[in-house]
């Protein structure tokens, strides 16, 4: 659990982060979203003390982060950034092994962990372990960057626009991978982005920042349904609200018994995908299948009701 309390950062006369308080529960993905220059990065960097706060405190599992040297704190917290920051003079394996080495792990344990992570990120260890980062594609470099951040099995992972440099298809793949890994390890993730779409896709909680202030801190559904200010509303995009709402749930959550004509869709797709399929194929209902078995249908009228503003 991360408790941020009255956190403030002032550079000379300008206050960049202004009395921000929020609590991130264990195993949550907290996405900090806002326009550029709103103080997202500064807020995140105060958690691992890359930026020292002017005022306020950060507690991790009840312990003040200032009760130990900053470098020791950082070794307990994963850190991944846009443009990955891989060491160009070290191999992929050495890059991933950085924090374990700093923590004094035994060599065989580091080697085993490196291979485990490479496999987890779909990079053949034998093929990639000894390459230099410059010999990888952009998407591969980004995966190695996240693997490196996870190497010492941290409970907390900080990510600053980690997918910002990727093209849309690779980005959505990377987002899916991150969600899968988060589920598997139960890591608490704090992720900074300026993209509301990404925030809604990834976040279990979204923190909206503007001019250093925290405007709203709530679940994606809550933010879409009840934006705290006009600014939050604008950030969501009023024309997209119903679709954003639908994208939060899967077909499986709303499948109902019954038959329908035509091709089936998979239960793991989002309601938004189901809605698009209804409109596109001109059907009022679509059969739903799970692992190849028909399990029921989803109806246009139900989807339309779900897309309406929650009361």
């Amino acid at each position: 659990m991360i408790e941020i309390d009255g956190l403030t950062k002032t550079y000379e006369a300008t206050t960049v982060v202004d009395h921000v308080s929020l609590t991130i529960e264990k195993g949550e993905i907290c996405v900090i979203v806002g326009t550029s220059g709103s103080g997202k990065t500064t807020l995140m960097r105060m958690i691992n003390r890359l930026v020292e706060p002017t005022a306020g405190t950060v507690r991790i599992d009840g312990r003040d982060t200032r009760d130990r040297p900053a470098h020791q704190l950082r070794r307990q917290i994963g850190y991944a950034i846009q443009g990955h920051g891989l060491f160009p003079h070290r191999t992929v394996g050495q890059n991933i092994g950085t924090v374990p080495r700093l923590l004094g792990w035994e060599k065989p344990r580091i080697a085993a962990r490196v291979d485990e992570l490479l496999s987890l990120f779909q990079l053949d260890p034998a093929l990639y372990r000894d390459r230099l980062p410059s010999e990888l594609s952009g998407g591969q470099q980004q995966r190695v960057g996240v693997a490196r951040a996870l190497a010492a099995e941290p409970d907390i992972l900080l990510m600053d626009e980690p997918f910002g440099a990727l093209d849309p298809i690779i980005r959505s793949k990377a987002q899916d991978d991150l969600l899968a890994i988060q589920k598997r390890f139960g890591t608490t993730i704090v992720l900074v982005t300026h993209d509301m779409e990404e925030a809604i896709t990834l976040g279990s909680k979204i923190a909206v920042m503007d001019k250093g202030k925290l405007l709203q801190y709530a679940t994606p559904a809550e933010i879409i349904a009840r934006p705290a200010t006009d600014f939050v509303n604008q950030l969501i995009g009023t024309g997209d609200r119903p679709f954003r709402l639908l994208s939060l749930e899967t077909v499986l959550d709303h499948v109902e018994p019954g038959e329908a004509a035509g091709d089936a869709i998979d239960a793991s797709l989002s309601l938004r995908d189901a809605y698009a399929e209804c409109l596109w194929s001109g059907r009022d209902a679509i059969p739903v299948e799970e692992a190849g078995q028909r399990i029921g249908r989803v109806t246009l009228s139900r989807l339309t009701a779900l897309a309406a503003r929650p009361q």
Partner: protein
Amino acid sequence: MAQLLSSPSDLQAARVPRLDKLGIIIAVLVLAAVFFLPFVISRPNRIVAGMALPISGALPALQAIVLYGLIALGSVIGLLRVPSLWRLASSFVVVLSLCLFLGGAANFLTPEGNTVARVSPGAGFWVLVFAFALIAADALVRLRLGPLARIGVLLLVAAAIAAMLWAGVWQNLSILKEYANRGAAFWAEARTHVALAFGSLAVATVIGVPVGILCYRRSSVRAALLPVLNMVQTIPSIALFGLLIAPLAWLAANVPGASAVGISGIGTAPAMIALFAYSLLPIVSNTVIGLDGVDASVKDAARGMGMTDNQVLFGVELPLAFPVILTGIRIVLVQNIGLATIAALIGGGGFGVFVFQGIGQTAMDLVLLGAVPTVALAFVAAVVLDALVELVSPKRVPSA
């Protein structure tokens, strides 16, 4: 050339090979050197005015014809756009022949048993060597040799020169006659020269890199120090050597023990200090530039993962800045090998001793005995360090 034969104009070009631009300039140089400049200067003794002789006057007729032929052939190959390897090989052969025939001319022009007659290379010889060395250098660049291959070529050239020296090809040449009279002094001054150049470099590196790190971390230190070092660089070298004489002489006279450890107004100490002063700026500024140039996201990631400041410095920043720092060391070494010549003016020793003695006695051969090894040393240092810089630089792999 096969891949060039794709359009009609290329076909024409293949029948009448196009001329190489550098080759044209060099052909003009060669013509001037062959017809208007002396190949050797021959004198009855080392200080009287001599007789300027062209190739035809310096060698037996048959040898002269062979040399003219080789020069003509080398120039034509230099003029044409033939593969670089041919140009390299032909210019190599011509330079080698020039060196061999220079020795031959000295043997031919020196009467048997005469030890006072002097035969020196003339302006024509130097221009010809320069012209064909240019073709060779151009060909080497176009061949894009790797760093190790370049060092290999250097070793080959050094071996060829050593073999010719050992075989006595140039034994009747003036510069070697000067050497014969001064063998012991030559090697003593060579040691001093190398000690001055490398010693000042070593001290400047040991002090300059930490100072560079300090400048990188503290902008106040950088703002105060770099302008001072910049100013030192603008002081003319002779003035700087001279400027140090007075304070050091005062130190030697007034501080007990100072003269015992070798400090005096003239000699090696002020030369060392002056060379050190010139070395500091390139090393400090290249250290700062190299550290500044390390990708900000790499530094941020290093700190964010929990490296201490020293771990970031030694594990990430210095290794990534190293090629730039090494470039600074290369600049300093080549510069100091040249500048160390001036140390002789204040009694510091080195090859400059022969240069300035030679100027004083108007004995050009003695000047050469100091100048030729200095140039050779600087050249070797440049080639070797350039190769090293390339070896330690990150390989350029096209990123996807």
